[in-house]
């Protein structure tokens, strides 16, 4: 299992690529909140273009067992979350990804279709289909962090669910949590 915070004092860095409106910034915050709930230090921050729907957005999460002082963007991430596979065209999304790094992609296609070198670990999830199916809206960020939690092994689902419920109170949040758990289970291989 990929170990997110296995080494004492080691900083783990996650970069999220998405488009405006896909909740990439919120996803980065969910991860930070969940890590914090597990007693770790965390920092999430966005790099906006000029905010508009559809434009590429990058968001970042740092997780550590020590206070985080570093404020620069993330150039050598341990993990990537790709919320929109169409961003692969024309962008080097894998840039700087550490050897052995994890890539989680929102796509109904198999991982082999993306030509990702073998030194990286790839996990795919058809998040948009799953969201439309289970939530009735194309809200994919919760599903992507659920898949990420399963693949990375260190973010706890109860902590994530708490953050999601706070952000989306009521029925929507409950549907989100169920869909997120489904994504987790699919990546874990519990369900296919």
């Amino acid at each position: 299992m990929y170990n997110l915070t296995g080494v004492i004092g080691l900083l783990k860095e996650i970069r999220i690529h998405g488009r405006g409106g896909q909740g990439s910034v919120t996803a980065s915050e969910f991860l930070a909140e969940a890590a914090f709930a597990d007693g770790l230090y965390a920092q999430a921050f966005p790099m906006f273009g000029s905010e508009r729907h559809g434009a590429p957005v990058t968001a970042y999460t740092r997780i550590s067992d020590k206070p985080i002082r570093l404020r620069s963007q993330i150039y050598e991430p341990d993990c990537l979350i790709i919320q929109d596979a169409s961003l692969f065209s024309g962008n080097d999304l894998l840039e700087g990804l550490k050897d052995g790094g994890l890539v989680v992609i929102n796509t109904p296609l198999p991982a082999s279709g993306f030509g990702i070198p073998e030194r990286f670990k790839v996990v795919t999830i058809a998040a948009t289909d799953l969201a439309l199916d289970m939530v009735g809206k194309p809200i994919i960020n919760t599903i992507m962090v659920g898949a990420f939690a399963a693949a990375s092994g260190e973010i706890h689902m109860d902590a994530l669910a708490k953050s999601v419920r706070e952000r989306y109170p009521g029925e929507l949040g409950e549907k989100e949590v169920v869909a997120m758990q489904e994504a987790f289970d699919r990546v874990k291989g519990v369900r296919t």
Partner: protein
Amino acid sequence: MKQIMEGSRAVAETVALCRPKVVCAYPITPQTHIVEDLARIITDGRLDAGYVLADSEFTAASVVLGASATGARAYTATSSQGLLLMTEVMFNIAGMRLPVVMTVANRAVSAPINIWNDQQDSMSLRDCGWIQMYAEDVQEACDMHVQAFAVAEKLNIPVMVCMDGFILTHATEPVDLPDADQVDEWLAPFKPKFYLTTSDPITLGSMAGPDAYMEIRLLLHQAMQEASSAIESEAERFEKAFERRQGGMLDVYQARDADVLLVSMGSLLGTMKDAVDELREEGHKVGIVKVRTVRPFPRTHLHDALSGARAVGVIEKDISLGLEGILCSEIRSAFCGAAVTPNISSFVVGLGGRDVRKEHIREIALGLLKDDTCRVEIPGIDHEVLWSAHEIENEGV
């Protein structure tokens, strides 16, 4: 209680704990979340205050001026062009000795239009008579606001708390917010000696001719110079109550035996501390002086902190066009007439949101260790972009 939240929300929650009676602002990126959150807090009934949505920053500043003159604790926040539009009123607020507190979510100024972070906006207003503090992280930004109200009202001088736009305003990180009782106990209600009231009419901000203007300006200048002792004492009082040292004029980090000292303000300090830890591990004697309060200028503090170094690199996100980084010029002035002066160099970085990495700080420090000649550098320029901009300037598109 330690929580994790966005910097803007943490600041809004903290400002609410300080119980302003009037909040007035005009939204501008990246300040927006702060005033949106405050509006929500007031609408939810968690803060008994009037929220005035202004039609411009000029109005916002004018409304808080008026509110403060009537004896109400008043707060506003802005960024960049918004701050520049407030300029005339900023001088008036200070000249009338009104203890308004403002957050500046630091952002580059136009042109070219740019929404990202640097500190040109607040640094351009350093001479308007406001105390200026710069926060390194979200925790410090919050704690500075509590102290800002106390300092402002003790001295009748307005305070600007500067926090880097996006880098801090939009960062989600752990923060220990004080609880309401604690703040109520620490921060006395605002009770000004003079204020506008119909029952006892007075005039504030009347005309002063050549016979009195200089004396009144001198009083403000002296009050600013003496403000450092109040800033230090409030920081000590804060530390006793909240068990965090989060104020005062400046701080040092790994500075004791340093050959090279790097000076900066705001969120850059965090990245710099990581870089300096690495350099120390490699055996390089590099340290940091963090300027927390830019006005009043910590001249003697800086003189004492920097005297032992061979070279000083002032790393800042602003520039006095045609000269150098603004803070650098000011630090040079701290050594006027001194027997021993370190070589002081200016490094202008991070304008308009250009990312500053640990590697950039390392390069500056290692460069100064190798060659301590006084210089002005603007590192990290993309020469292809520079060339095409130059072409367009000369030949049109």
